[in-house]
């Protein structure tokens, strides 16, 4: 195959792919509380409880201060830095009414319209 792989760097012996979180054991250990809270949002009653009392809900799941701050700021990159995994975070984003384009726009620093246009611009035909 002729596709050249993007430049990768080693970081602490681990392969790093720019702009691309790899949810490995280290991230998972850091993020467990946050991901566990997000997993609970499969249940509508839990989503309602979170919306009613965000502080209490986050405290119940023992979020770290870094995780709590990231959730308070609806800051997806900070959630990922705190060990969040996007498969679980997507359920939290849903509570805030954010879809994956909104989340993508936030992470790339684009407007949502610009992010959507960027996606459309990748069409081949």
């Amino acid at each position, binding site marked *: *195959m002729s*596709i050249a*792989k*993007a430049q*990768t760097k080693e970081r602490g012996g681990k*392969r790093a*792919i*720019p*702009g*691309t*979180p*790899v*949810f*490995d*054991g280290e991230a*998972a250990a850091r993020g*467990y509380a946050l*991901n*566990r809270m*997000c*997993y609970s*949002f*499969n*249940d*509508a009653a839990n*989503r309602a409880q979170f919306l009613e009392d965000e502080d209490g809900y986050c405290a119940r799941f023992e979020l770290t201060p870094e995780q709590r701050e990231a959730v308070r700021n609806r800051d*997806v*990159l900070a959630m*990922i830095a705190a060990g969040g*995994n*996007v*498969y*679980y*975070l*997507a*359920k939290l*984003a*849903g*509570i805030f009414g954010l*879809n*994956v*384009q909104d*989340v*993508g726009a936030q*992470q*790339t620093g684009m407007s949502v319209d610009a*992010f959507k246009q*960027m*996606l*459309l611009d*990748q*069409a*081949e035909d």
Partner: protein
Amino acid sequence: MAKIVGGILTSHVPAIGGAIARGQQNDPYWKPFFDGFKPVHKWLAAQQPDVAVMFYNDHGLNFFLDKMPTFAVGAADLYRNADEGWGLPVMQAVGGAQALSWHIIEHLVGAEFDITTCQSMLVDHAVMVPIQLCWPGAQPWPVKIVPIVINTVQHPLPSPARCLALGRAVGEALASWQGAERIVVLGTGGLSHQLDGERAGFINADYDRFCLDQIGPNPDAIAKDSALDIVELAGTQGVEVINWIAARGAMGADVRELSRNYHIPISNTAAATMLFETGSSLRAAA
């Protein structure tokens, strides 16, 4: 004797489920994707499979990090769908081909695949969206399923080569199954997309074309890369193509491509659909 009639590979983007719920199949945004299923519908109407063996990844509905299997095989007689937290309607449950599940499990453990068996399991959009795409409006669903779940969430992921080997072992199990079922193999997920990080929105049409061209005749060419290679080439969630690789393995050595569709974008994803006739059905037709 059971017969593997063919295989279907498709994206499973949740937004597709939303579009179906809203009846937007013919909207300009959606039509290029949904049109790719026309040959699939025609082929399914002719082939009338009884069982779908489905390779996919769970997105945090049935599995959490407390018990995250590399490979899981369902062994239930019914699989319920459930609320995933972002507003998709909950679909009708789908029946399980339970005896076939146990036959596959016996074969896989005997072949040194260290699977997790799931006698009760919720199935998410990665099962329900492809079923809706294949059998739109059908109630009850016309197939029973054997769900086979591959970890795409928690690294280390299984190597693509291991996924291909898993699929091939499932194919061996299907070939030795004494039931009369007509079996279709499904692989769901991909193609290139990335939801998270500063590279969110990444799509790699060149790599996707490579996958579409190779998955039929030469799946080993895709499976030779590591999971992290594929993360880099296809995006963090584009690595879901390992579900396609496993499904391709289960189809057997010889396949003939009957249709393909590729469209950018559906939501954040390069969406694709492929339909294959398998060696055994080719022989039956010859």
